[in-house]
């Protein structure tokens, strides 16, 4: 297609709002979030449990479970193969939505078992994913599947291909899910805590794989995790969320090395580290100001490009 994407962003989210009606009233799971994902870069979303990370990710694929719904805002996808897609306005039966979910954007879910079907072999499932997006022979699909399983660190992939998900350990299942998401060669990969259940050696392998493939394919990644070590290693940009809002965003160095928002500082202080061995860990609540979050304060863009939700007088002069 000749009309190339108009900008360097592959995804632009504007004032996204997602509500869930509950017996206690409306829950604003995502309460006005704006960010963009740059082409070829990895954006990490961090934040406590319940801060709206998964719901934000689900919105991009339009996978919010009813009674939840997108209550406002827009999400646009600028694919290299398609004209821009306005995701929020797509009808539920629009062909583009299928295309979006299966090919342009793929997602690794937080709970791997939901992504695998117990009655088909692992090989069947990976090959099916390949056939959906690529016009290849059965043999070729199997070769790709074996290669991908090998790359996510599954030993003896030719044999493992013929087994069922229940014959895999938890960590191995998660690697299969990663493999399945990657064979589709998506333009955007959304990974929701893909390595939480993995041990470090496998995690390092999966992180390296995601990095390599991104270089190879030039795709973008949205990486949701609570492991700051993982963020530091894989992300280019970081968003810090709390209660459905963005509190701070910027490059990985800006956010991790010189955070501005007290909440971000609290989040970083809570990581166990060498210097504090055996002592009580600081929790977010123990960092002064970290919990004084005024959700009505809009994000300010600072001169170095990062954004932070603090009133101007509270932003340290050195960073403005």
């Amino acid at each position, binding site marked *: 297609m000749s009309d190339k994407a108009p900008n360097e962003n592959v995804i632009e989210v504007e004032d996204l709002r997602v509500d869930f009606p509950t017996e206690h009233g409306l829950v604003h799971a995502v309460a006005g979030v704006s960010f963009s994902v740059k082409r070829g870069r990895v954006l990490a979303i961090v934040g406590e449990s319940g801060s709206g990370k998964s719901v934000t990710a689900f919105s991009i694929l339009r996978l919010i479970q009813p009674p939840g719904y997108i209550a406002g805002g827009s999400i646009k996808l600028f694919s290299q193969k398609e004209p821009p897609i306005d995701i929020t306005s797509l009808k539920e039966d629009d062909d583009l939505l299928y295309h979006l979910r299966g090919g342009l954007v793929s997602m690794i879910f937080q709970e791997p078992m939901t992504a695998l079907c117990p009655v088909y072999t692992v090989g069947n499932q990976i090959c099916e994913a390949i056939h959906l997006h690529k016009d290849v022979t059965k043999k070729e699909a199997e070769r790709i599947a074996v290669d991908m399983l090998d790359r996510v660190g599954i030993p003896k992939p030719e044999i493992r291909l013929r087994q069922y998900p229940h014959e895999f350990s938890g960590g191995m299942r998660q690697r299969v899910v990663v493999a399945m998401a990657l064979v589709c060669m998506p333009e955007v990969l959304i990974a929701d805590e893909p390595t*939480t259940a993995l041990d470090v050696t496998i995690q390092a392998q999966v992180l390296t794989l995601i990095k390599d493939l991104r270089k190879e394919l030039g795709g973008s990644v949205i990486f949701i995790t609570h492991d700051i070590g993982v963020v530091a290693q894989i992300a280019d940009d970081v968003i810090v969320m709390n209660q459905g809002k963005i509190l701070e965003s910027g490059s990985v160095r800006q956010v991790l090395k010189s955070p501005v928002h007290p909440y971000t500082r609290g989040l970083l202080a809570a990581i166990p580290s060498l210097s504090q061995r055996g002592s009580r860990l600081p929790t977010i609540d123990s960092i002064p100001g970290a919990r004084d979050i005024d959700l009505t304060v809009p994000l300010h863009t600072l001169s170095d490009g990062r954004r932070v939700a603090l009133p101007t007088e509270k932003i340290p002069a050195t960073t403005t």
Partner: protein
Amino acid sequence: MTASDTKPLLRVQNLCKFFPVHAKGIRRKVIDEVRAVDHVTFDIQPGETLGLVGESGSGKTTCARTILRALSPTAGRVHFQSEDGEVELSSLSEHALKPLRQQMQMIFQDPFSSLNPRMTVGGIVEEPLLIHGIGTPAERREKAADILRKVDLLPEHRERYPHAFSGGQRQRIGIARALILRPRFIVCDEAVSALDVSVQAQVINLLMDLQEEFHLTYLFVAHDLGVVRHICDRIAVMRNGKLVEMKKTEELFSNPEHPYTQRLLSAIPNPDPDIPLRPILEASEEEELAEAKL
């Protein structure tokens, strides 16, 4: 100090757990075995936290479960300093074990499947008291409310069902349930792995506070080496069912000797973006050799 004070709380000697591998077909002949735990030996001192680390499938969970007799060992001995003196767990009958189970608890890996979905949180947390016939209903409720407060859940959470909680909250419910019997020995199997850093820090602090308050002893199974390094006094590294290295925490991190330990430590992502991850991804020849010798 009496002699029994200095004795290890737990002495594990040559513990083995093999699982049979069956052939396909009706007769399901045993054709092989998985040596999930293969001659494991270690001690844990009272009040100590021993970390058990190793890759997925190395046998950590099986080892922990075999120690607690949730699985019966294939071979080996487990000596436990109970409140009434030393007992050898591996040979006890189920009946003899029951009173001891109060003193040894496990906090599980999977917060999604380890809680009964049809019971309220209050019911789940009180249940161990009920099983062991402790207290009146009012006392049990009081104790449950107490322990839920300790793990930072609200009293009104008592009436809710597990599905209404986030992963982190469910994990804290599991911890409350394990703690309500005031055990002396607790196995934490990936107890904080599913928690975000803020809750993780709270739970780690909680586990350390409780350790001090009640002189608890922990076997801490985990794959997050940052957490293990923070709370463990010593660390045992497991690979293919065997312990390959066991040392004081600082020593292990500053001087890992076994190639597998070195590989494990090299894979920890540093929270500083300027310190790149340089994992040793492949087992070295040296490591293969070390393995063959075991």
